């Protein structure tokens, strides 16, 4: 496995710190963290990461805005994005239409089943610009699963 750079963008500093710690355990990753969208964007443009972990609900730049910005930029447009979010947003996502797959997905879930990283169906991923959805709260296992979705060929868009 080649050396990989990861940028984690989350307004919760603790989550950023823990993510860094766990990601470095999971593999030979170099992890950069940012506490808001614009900092995250700057980091991505300088570091050119292989993967971006993006919190969807943040006080300043919203996740949806960030995705658009990443897609518009030549440097980041092909970088796989893993969106991290609590399920609560599923019902308040601004783009109701594009996110309705998530509520459908949740409705059809066995109530006792634990929600791990979700590989987003290809056609939806294309329209959303993200590949994997990592529902909060998540643990080390879920992060590993999310990474494996990105690293396996069939997850490529």
């Amino acid at each position: 496995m080649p050396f990989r750079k990861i940028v984690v963008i989350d307004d919760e500093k603790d989550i950023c710190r823990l993510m860094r710690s766990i990601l470095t355990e999971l593999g030979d990753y170099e992890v950069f963290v940012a506490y808001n969208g614009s900092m995250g964007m700057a980091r991505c443009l300088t570091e050119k990461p292989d993967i971006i972990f993006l919190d969807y609900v943040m006080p300043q730049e919203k996740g949806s805005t960030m995705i658009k910005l990443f897609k518009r930029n030549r440097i980041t447009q092909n970088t796989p994005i893993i969106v991290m979010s609590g399920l609560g947003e599923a019902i308040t996502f601004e783009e109701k239409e594009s996110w309705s797959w998530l509520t459908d997905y949740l409705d059809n879930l066995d109530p006792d089943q634990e929600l791990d990283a979700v590989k987003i169906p290809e056609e939806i991923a294309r329209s959303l610009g993200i590949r994997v959805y990592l529902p909060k709260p998540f643990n080390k296992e879920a992060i590993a699963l999310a990474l494996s979705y990105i690293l396996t060929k069939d997850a490529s868009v």
Partner: protein
Amino acid sequence: MLKPIKTLLIEDDQSSADLISEFLRQNHCRASVCHVGSIKESVDCLKNETFDVILLDLTLPDSEGMNTLDSITRVNTVLPIVILTGLNDESLAVEMIKKGAQDYLVKGQFNSSLLMRVIQYAIERKIIEQALRISEQEWRKTFNAISDRIFIQDEDFRIVKMNKAFAQTMKLNPEDIFGKKCHEVLHGSDQPIPQCPCVKTRCDGISHCEEILDTETGQSFQVTTSPIIENSLYKGAVHIARDITSQKKTDEELKDIQAQLLQLEKMAVLGQMSAGITHEIKNPLSTILLSIDCIKTKMGGKDPIQIKELLNLLEESAQRINKVINELLSFVRTPNIKVQRVNLHRAIDTAISLLDNKARHKNVICEKYYSKEDIEINADKLLIEQVFYNLLSNAVDAMEPGGRIKLRTECPGMSGGEMVDVEISDTGCGMTDEEIVKIFEPFFTTKDYGKGTGLGLSIVKMVVEKHKGSINVVSQKGSGTSFTVSLPVSAG
């Protein structure tokens, strides 16, 4: 100036008539007399002309005595009548006055001034009588027009007056009620009812108001009694009963709607809140779970004082919090129903199989009494399975080991558009009436702390209602609970 007086004189004796005419002219410059000799003529006269007074001889060629007066009063009720009578039938004349004549004169025993005075008084009295009758009629009309049931009682509870509405409600003739005591008529009791407002009014001389439910008809009345005081003495009371049945019903419906609205509002607030709260809770939960992972890694193989066990406990608790939040979310998020034809018995069987382990663990037996025919319903398969799963899961939880669950389905006719009833009864701990009222409310639970979120039955009710069905519960503390889910059968 004297008012003109026009007299109709009904008298067959010419000389007597002449005398009376003479008397009138002597005394009154503007008096005029129309003289007829029979009832027949007088009836014609009364039709064509107007008069101020009638002087009536009782003995006429075509009528005699009492009949004479009756014949005249049949065509005339407005004019005062003065009877002319012979000396020997004065008692008859008195009788006539009771029948409505104003006065009488004994022939040969009156002079012109007495005649005049009698006539003038008769006219005056008739006017007053008329005014009195009109005012009495008006009062009665008004009294009877009131839709409230009203009667007036004397100081001894005897009914002395009543309006039409009251008489109609009692389905009795007013004559049969007059003079009877109100407690006899209304309650069939020979003693006054102590809590009746009229008893209180009689006691303290002020108005009282009470709501009274007629247990026979189910009608509610607002009964007001107001005292009638004369010279500071209690003379009786006005008793008014107003039918407030429909008003009460409307009030109750309004209360129901308000309660529903409140519930909806609560739900809406809950929905908004949970979206926000979820985010706030999920972030720290992430931190907890990630921290646990980090600690575990950092400890490596070392585990000095069962720290790993404690960490597992932490992890489980965090996951439990997450589960509660997710249930809360699935509750406030109105699911989109994807309707398809669902085999009801198979859906119930699926729910049973999901519970198999739990039931076996508790040694609970599930007895199925399905209808012979398969029943198909239009439903969202997953949601309807969840309904039965929740109900069965509650049944298992409510029972001691060795309990029994009975499942019964009642097949309706084949015509479709009907409801199928699914009854799920257990032999568990049952519920009190207070508990039954609350079980469908979100967050109400009878389970031990940490064992239930109180959302299961709320979800059941919501899903059943989304399917245009209904759910009912019968329970007895200590002997078990029975839920009946009614769902519309798919047509054809």
